């Protein structure tokens, strides 16, 4: 076992276990903090796959942004106003059927797709290539997404002002 295997199993265990606890824990603040470890583990696995840029963007956006926002929401509503947010189980049978069907669909996709595998060395740097792709080949899509996000931002601000 070399160091990469050890690191992979470490991150895989972190991701899997924390994701499991996110779903099962009754305390919503715990769930949010377990989500932190899930995001972190996923970022580690991205690095091992050679996608270093995506890993770091994952950390910046999910850990540094979305998770913190989520924690803000949870903390401000859960403890200060002493309203218990309900995290119990409702409608077990329909939920089980739905989840089972979806899992079956996913497993079917996973097994019957002919995955394209090419043996290449891991790219040493991905940032430059990604930058060129985003700002030349997919420039229009990229800019449109930017405008879409801006519209969402302005909309949120104007709703919050009412």
């Amino acid at each position: 076992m070399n160091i990469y295997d050890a690191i992979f199993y470490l991150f895989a265990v972190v991701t899997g276990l924390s994701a499991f606890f996110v779903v099962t824990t009754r305390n919503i603040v715990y769930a949010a903090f377990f989500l932190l470890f899930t995001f972190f583990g996923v970022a580690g696995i991205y690095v091992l796959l050679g996608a270093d840029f995506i890993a770091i963007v994952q950390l910046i956006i999910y850990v540094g942004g979305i998770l913190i926002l989520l924690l803000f929401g949870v903390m401000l509503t859960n403890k200060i106003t002493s309203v218990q947010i309900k995290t119990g189980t409702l409608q077990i049978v329909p939920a089980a059927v739905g989840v089972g069907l979806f899992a079956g669909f996913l497993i079917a996709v996973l097994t019957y797709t002919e995955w394209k595998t090419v043996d290449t060395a891991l790219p040493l740097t991905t940032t430059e290539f990604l930058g060129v792709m985003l700002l030349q080949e997919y420039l229009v899509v990229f800019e449109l997404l930017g405008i879409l996000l801006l519209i969402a931002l302005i909309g949120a601000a104007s709703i919050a002002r009412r």
Partner: protein
Amino acid sequence: MIYDYLFKITGSEIISGVIQSLLPLLFFILPFALFAVWLERKVSAHMQDRLGPMRVGYHGALQTIADIIKLIQKEDIVPKETDKPLFNIAPVLVFAGSYAAFAAIPFSSVFIGSTIDLGLLFIIAVSGLVVAGILMAGWASNNKYSLLGAMRSAAQIISYEIPTILVILSIVMITGTLNLHTLSEMQTAYFWNWMIFGGPGSGLDKIIFIPLMLLAFLIIYLSTLAEVNRTPFDIPEAESELVAGYHTEYSGMKFAMFFLAEYANMFAVSAIVSALFFGGYQSPFGYIGNYIGLQWLVPIEQFFWFTAKGVFFVFVQMWLRWTLPRLRVDQLMAVCWKYLIPLSFVNLIIIGLITVL
């Protein structure tokens, strides 16, 4: 590189990796924190016309060691109504975030934890862990002052990350790299090649860059100062309003971990600033080792220059802390969103136009 050398000795990737990742902690962060705590007390004392610690060692030089022995002996108090698991994890998480940043800091040309291509972004990204740890500490303490402090801290760190990233982006436009090693190598030889003096190029654009770089330096210095929660931006732990902010309930070694993380963070942001604008580990005048033909001296000199620049900026942080009063919460947000962010956008656009032309 140190890693190759360790790999030759031990013959195992795992052992040499672990040793290499421990090096900055044992040989840098701990001694630096000892020194910086002493320096902070001396700087504050002399600014207020006092002497500061004088009894333990020469001019109180061993005072911090005595304090650490006291902290180790202290009882580990966990208040009754706290959330125990989160309360215990939070200091570790905060320290892990600031320690992880040291993986990408270029101490000298032979010692960087990892010469990853995205060193700068990596440092910004792992500081997100610090925010989560602070929120965790504040919430788990079950204390209104702690929670308020943690909320303020998170809002502040997230807001001030934006001008930091914008300034980094404008540096990237000029240099075309996010790798801190390459960035330092570009600013080699003499001090007029540093980014603050317009970068390694020559000609007209170098002169045009100087005022823009000065502005960029000011913006990033202020916003990193806010990111490490130092005065004038220390509202998360404002003593006169919030007792001690998010670490009100902590005592003993857990409090010491928050403290260690704060000082490690102070050095990390100073290191980013010096690597971006002041040549990183490069000497301002060339190396003695090169003149007298001793090549092995060069990395040691580089380490000296890097530490000297880092400690200088840490000293400036302390200087500001004992000179300026604290901002109000609304003023803090106004400084970020109404002044720093628009200024850094304008700066970014001008620098972008110059690099294109």
